[in-house]
C-alpha cells in the first residue's frame, strides 16, 4: 500500500507561480514554493482540476503515446463511452470503432460493452448486500482515492467491483489470445481515456492487484487523427459492424449512467469534486435520514464527458450521448462468453495522509500550534505565501516545511518593527 503515483504533474518552465491551482485543488495538495507549484503526491487524487484552471498550461497529465502500438504484435483499442460524444453528428458508433482500427489497432473492445456486465454484477451485489447500503460507486478513480485518504468510515461502503475499463481489458486480452495464439505480453491493450485519474488507476490500482490495461492514451491526443479516420471510413463506405453496447453501456459516459444501469430509483448521483466531497461529508456524519441503496459519484462535472482530457463541452457531450442512445436496445452485452473476474481482490486500507504528527500527543501539540498560528495570520487566505489558506500555511509551518515569514502580512509587520528599531538607534 501507500502507492501515491499521480498522473498530474508540472511543467516547471511554464509555471509562473500564480495561485490559481493552489486555490482550486480540492485536497489542498499544491503549494507554490520558490516561484513554482509543487504537488504533494500523498494528497493528490488526480482529479485534474489544476489542469483545468492553469492558464499557462503548466499542469499536465502523464499519458502514453499512440506510437507505442509498434511495441506490440497485436493491439486492441478500448474506447471510453464518452469518446462517442466528442464527434459532431455521429449517428453510428461503428464509425468511431472502424476508424480506430484504421488508425492501426487490430481490434476494438468497447468499455461500454464491459460496463453492461459491470452493471449486472453491481445490480446483483447491491441487492444482496443491504447491510452495506449505501454502496458507493468505485468507477471514478479520483473518488476512490479521495475516500481512501479522507473518509475512513466510508471505505466499507465502496462497491467492491472493478470499473468497466478493467473488465474490458480482461475480456479484450482473453479474446486476443484466443484469436491470435500470441503470448499475453505481445498483446497491447490501449485505453482511450477521458482523464488522468484513469492513468493512475492503471499504474496503481486500488482494490485489485494489477491492471490489464497496458497503455493509456488521452482522447484529446488522438482526436484530430480519429476525426480524419472517421471521415475516411464514411467516405469509403466501409463501416464495420463492431459495436456491442446498448443504452446502459453508453450511458456510463455521463453522470447518472452507472446508477441508471442498476435499474433502481433509490440512488443519489453527484458530479463535480466539490459536490462529491459535500455528499461524502454528509454521508459520513449520517445526515441522510433515508439512505439510498446506491451513490454514484463522479469527480468531473457531467461525469466522464467532463474529463479534463476531453475535447467537447461536457453539457453538449451529454446531449450527443442522449441522441446516440435513442434507438439502441437497453443492453447488448448480457453475459461474458467466458469466465471473468469483476470482483475486487484486495482490501482497501485507510491512508491517514493528513495526520499532523506520528502519535496522538505530537499531533495534539501540533494542532494547538496550528490554532495559535491561525490567530496571528490575517485570515485573508490570499495565497501569497504559496499555501491556499492561512490554516494550510499554519499546518505547513508545524510540519516544518514553511516559515511564519512566508506570510507577507507577518513579514510586513516584521519589517515595520525592524525599521522602527533602526530609527531609534
Amino acid at each position, binding site marked *: 500500500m501507500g502507492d501515491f503515483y499521480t498522473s498530474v504533474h508540472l511543467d516547471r518552465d511554464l509555471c509562473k507561480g500564480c495561485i490559481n491551482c493552489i486555490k482550486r485543488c480540492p485536497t489542498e495538495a499544491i503549494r507554490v514554493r520558490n516561484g513554482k507549484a509543487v504537488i504533494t503526491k500523498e494528497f493528490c487524487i488526480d482529479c485534474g482540476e489544476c489542469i483545468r484552471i492553469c492558464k499557462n498550461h503548466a499542469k499536465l497529465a502523464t499519458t502514453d503515446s499512440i506510437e507505442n502500438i509498434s511495441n506490440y504484435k497485436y493491439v486492441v483499442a478500448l474506447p471510453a463511452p464518452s469518446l462517442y460524444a466528442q464527434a459532431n453528428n455521429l449517428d453510428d458508433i461503428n464509425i468511431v470503432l472502424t476508424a480506430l482500427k484504421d488508425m492501426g489497432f487490430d481490434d476494438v473492445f468497447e468499455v461500454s460493452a464491459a460496463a453492461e456486465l459491470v452493471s449486472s454484477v453491481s445490480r446483483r451485489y447491491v441487492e444482496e448486500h443491504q447491510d452495506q447500503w449505501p454502496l458507493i460507486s468505485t468507477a471514478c478513480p479520483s473518488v476512490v482515492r479521495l475516500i481512501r485518504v*479522507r473518509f*475512513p*468510515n466510508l471505505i466499507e461502503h465502496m462497491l467492491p467491483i472493478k470499473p468497466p475499463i478493467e473488465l474490458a481489458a480482461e475480456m479484450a486480452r482473453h479474446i486476443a489470445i484466443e484469436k491470435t495464439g500470441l503470448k499475453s505480453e505481445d498483446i497491447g491493450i490501449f485505453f482511450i481515456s477521458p482523464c488522468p485519474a484513469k492513468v493512475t488507476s492503471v499504474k496503481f490500482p486500488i482494490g485489485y492487484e494489477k491492471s490489464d490495461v497496458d497503455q493509456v492514451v488521452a482522447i484529446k491526443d488522438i482526436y484530430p487523427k480519429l476525426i480524419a479516420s472517421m471521415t475516411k471510413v464514411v467516405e469509403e463506405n466501409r463501416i464495420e459492424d463492431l459495436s456491442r453496447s446498448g443504452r446502459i453501456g453508453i450511458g456510463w459516459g455521463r453522470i447518472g449512467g452507472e446508477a441508471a444501469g442498476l435499474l433502481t430509483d433509490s440512488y443519489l448521483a453527484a458530479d463535480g469534486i466539490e459536490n462529491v466531497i459535500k455528499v461524502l*461529508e454528509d454521508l*459520513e*456524519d*449520517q*445526515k441522510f*435520514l433515508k439512505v439510498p441503496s446506491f451513490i454514484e459519484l463522479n469527480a468531473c462535472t457531467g461525469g466522464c464527458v467532463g474529463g479534463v482530457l476531453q475535447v467537447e463541452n461536457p453539457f453538449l457531450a451529454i446531449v450527443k450521448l442522449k441522441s446516440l442512445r435513442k434507438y439502441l436496445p437497453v443492453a447488448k452485452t448480457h453475459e461474458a462468453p467466458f469466465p471473468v473476474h469483476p470482483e475486487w481482490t484486495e482490501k482497501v486500507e*485507510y491512508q*491517514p495522509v*493528513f*495526520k*499532523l*504528527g506520528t*502519535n*496522538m*500527543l505530537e*499531533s*495534539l*501539540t501540533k*494542532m*494547538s500550534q496550528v*490554532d495559535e498560528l491561525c490567530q496571528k495570520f490575517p485570515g485573508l487566505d490570499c495565497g501569497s505565501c504559496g499555501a491556499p489558506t492561512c490554516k494550510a500555511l499554519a*499546518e505547513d509551518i508545524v510540519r516544518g516545511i514553511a516559515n511564519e515569514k512566508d506570510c507577507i502580512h507577518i513579514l510586513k509587520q516584521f519589517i515595520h518593527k525592524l525599521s522602527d528599531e533602526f530609527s531609534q538607534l
Partner: protein
Amino acid sequence: MSNSLRIQYLISDEDFTRAGEASGDVKAKLKMMGVNPEVIRKVSIAMYEGEINMVIHANGGVIDVIITEKDITMILKDKGPGIKDLDLAMQAGYSTASENVRALGFGAGMGLPNMKKYSDEMNIETEIGVGTTVTMKVFF
C-alpha cells in the same frame, strides 16, 4: 504547556444551514490527529446531534470542546427553555418538534438517544427557564 486543545464554538440560532459547522470542524481536527475512524464517527454524530438540538430547541448557545491525548469532552451549554421531562426526552422517538421542523427532516426524536448511544459518558444538567448543559465524553 498543557497537553490539551480547547476550542469554543458559538452556535447561532435558527440557521439550519450553519448547523453542523462546529461538529464538522471537530471531525476534521480528529482526522488530523489520527484518531481511530470509528471513534471519529461516534464523536461527529454525537456532537452534530447536540449542535442541532441547540439550534432547534434553545436559540443556539456555546460548545466548549476539550481534546486531550486520551479523550474528547464536549460541553454544550444553552440558555434555552430547559428539558421538562428528561426521562421522556431520552426515549427514542419522543419529539417536541413542530411540524415546520419535522418538515425539514429534523425532529425524529433521536437526538438525545443518539448522543447517549455514541458518547461514552453523558451528563445532562437542565433547569426550566434557565437552560441546559450537556457534557459528553468519548474516549480514544
